């Protein structure tokens, strides 16, 4: 009824209906979209800059840069500087330390995630979740300090115990009885550092378990653990794997804590308990202060290798986690 319009008030003109967005919308969409792609641009720039700056190293050292075990810069009598740079020993160290972190950290994270999802009383659950999140925001230099002054004295004793009873297993053997500042202790600290991320991913995945399957298991008379084993773990296992890989990515790139704890030695060392090792990130800050010329470029190249490693692991991890989370919906 058009008579509803009060006399005296102008009838607003009907908006012309089109599917064409207004100019303001076009600008808005353009601006937001370009910001949206900035993440991609940044990530590409990181790769390009590190690769270009490190190119000289890759071209002179070739594949030897990844497999070589030496990092030497020497000046001979004529003043000619010779470089022999390889990050092989540090790669070995990175893998070793990260493996320890995963072996210790992942089972603990899964048990915390299960506890938080199925066992914890509702009253303390939010508090405990906050504590786990808080752990993630501790600065890594704090983990380094704590690891060095609090954990190391205890962990050295544990290392001695393991060495005493298990040294017939090759990796628990040690060339010298020096157990401080070992990959084992660095791995333990890294384990604590990756627990928050692995826990939160696992918790998210466990919480996505289809409720009908959970209830079906209970209806068939399953105990809580029976339900977890039959429903939650099969459903969430690939998500846990993804979470563990995210943790692995973090462990690869951890710098300050590892630098503080490990006794950095340029020699491939497979003995977990022996106090010698390293990782790529700690190599970079160890050599940074004194590096000049080609050595700086070599460090940038090492950074590029680290960037690629973490990128691949992270992308794979996100792919797996994303697939699991979608399958629950």
């Amino acid at each position, binding site marked *: 009824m058009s008579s509803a319009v009060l006399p005296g008030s102008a009838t607003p003109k009907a908006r012309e209906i089109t599917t064409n967005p207004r100019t*303001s919308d076009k*600008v*808005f*969409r353009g601006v*937001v979209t370009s*910001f*949206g*792609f*900035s*993440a*991609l641009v*940044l*990530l590409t*720039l*990181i790769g390009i*800059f*590190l690769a270009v700056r490190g190119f000289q190293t890759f071209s002179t050292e070739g594949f030897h840069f990844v497999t070589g075990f030496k990092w030497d810069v020497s000046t001979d009598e004529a003043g000619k500087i010779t470089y022999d740079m390889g990050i092989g020993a540090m790669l070995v160290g990175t893998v070793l330390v990260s493996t320890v972190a995963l072996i210790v950290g992942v089972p*603990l994270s899964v*048990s915390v995630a*299960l*506890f*938080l999802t199925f*066992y914890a009383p509702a009253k303390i659950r939010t508090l*405990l979740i906050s504590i786990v999140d808080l752990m993630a*925001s*501790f*600065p*890594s*230099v*704090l983990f*380094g*300090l*704590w690891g060095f002054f*609090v*954990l190391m004295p205890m962990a050295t*004793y*544990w290392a001695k115990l393991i060495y005493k009873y298990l040294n017939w297993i090759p990796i628990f053997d040690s060339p010298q009885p020096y157990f401080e500042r070992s990959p084992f202790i660095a791995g333990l600290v890294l384990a*604590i550092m990756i*627990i928050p991320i692995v826990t939160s991913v696992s918790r998210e995945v466990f919480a996505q378990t289809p409720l009908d399957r959970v209830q079906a298991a209970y209806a068939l008379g399953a*105990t*809580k*653990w*029976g339900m977890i084993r039959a429903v939650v773990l099969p459903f969430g296992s690939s998500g846990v794997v993804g979470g563990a890989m995210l943790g692995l990515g*973090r462990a*690869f*790139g*951890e*710098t300050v804590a590892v630098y503080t704890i490990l006794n950095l030695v340029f020699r491939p060392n497979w003995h977990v308990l022996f106090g010698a090792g390293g990782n790529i*990130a700690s190599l*970079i*800050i160890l050599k*940074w202060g004194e590096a000049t010329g080609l050595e700086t470029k070599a*460090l*940038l190249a090492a950074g590029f290798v680290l*960037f690629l490693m*973490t990128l691949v692991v*992270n*992308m794979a*991890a*996100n792919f797996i986690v994303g697939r699991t989370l979608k399958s629950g919906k």
Partner: protein
Amino acid sequence: MTTTEVKPLRPWATTPRQMAPMALIFSGSFFITLFVLAFTPLKGKLAFVVFFFLFSSLANTIYSVRKRGRKALGETLAASVIIGGSLVVFLPVFSILYITLRKGIAGIHMTLFTQSMSNASFLDPVGKGGLLHALIGTLYLIMIAMIISVPMGIMTALYLTEIKGPGSNFIQFIVQAMSGVPSVVAGLFIFSSIILATPIKASAVAGAFALAILMIPTVTRTSQEVLLLVPADLREAGLAMGATQWRTVATIVVPAARNGLITATILGVARIAGETAPLIFTLGGADKINLNPFNNYNSALPFYVWKGLTLGTPESLARAWSGILVLIVLVLSLFIAARTLGTQKMKK
């Protein structure tokens, strides 16, 4: 007339009768463990924890199996392993907070917040000098990193939630990949792209650039989660009133998510406040107050801690601990602020 208030019955609640055996089991295993440690060569806290755990879970399992049959065997064992594992995880948190407080308090003194290290060395007794320069540096770093990464993060989140363009799945993937970039790589990137290639040398700005790279993914992901919580009804209502998408987002969606977006910013700041590794390449590290963020070396709290840590004398370590205490207080208050804002949002 009196009304009788009916108290709800809770037939499932644990009765004292059920509590008694539990208390017995735990106190029993406590004393057995003490006994074992006293009369065997096993010594130490580790042995105590391990044996207490073993005895109590064993006793608990036997009790439940007797009471509920064989089915309870796996159930009880699994529960004790899961609870034990969680305790192992929560212990380090308290240990870390305790040691920071205990060691950090020793280095807190009057001049800590009023002086810089320009007239003192890290090797001097703790009473000399302070970390004012580091506090100012950290403030600069946080502010500049926020100016860069908050607009970028929120805009990216808007792209992912409001525009949902053809590339949004891919961008989502890229943002996730970016959140895994190691901090040391971010520092190297800024070194090679800005410090080597532009007139900007190691300074607060360069450091903030590196931190912004780490902060963008955090801000993006949290903002995205918050924007997704804004009901679709609100957007539709805005559009149905004839508003353009731009007006809808600017006047309805973003204000509705305001608290959440602030939370996202705070979480981003908490993420970068303690980062040390990127600053080693980009900040330079000064010992005196530098009020110019664009020029000359600057300092930051994590860098101050790092310096104290690498020097390694008792005095410098005491400085490192007090620096980390200040840093932790900062991170904790940011964290609590984010939590409070986050729960306010949920209550609405």
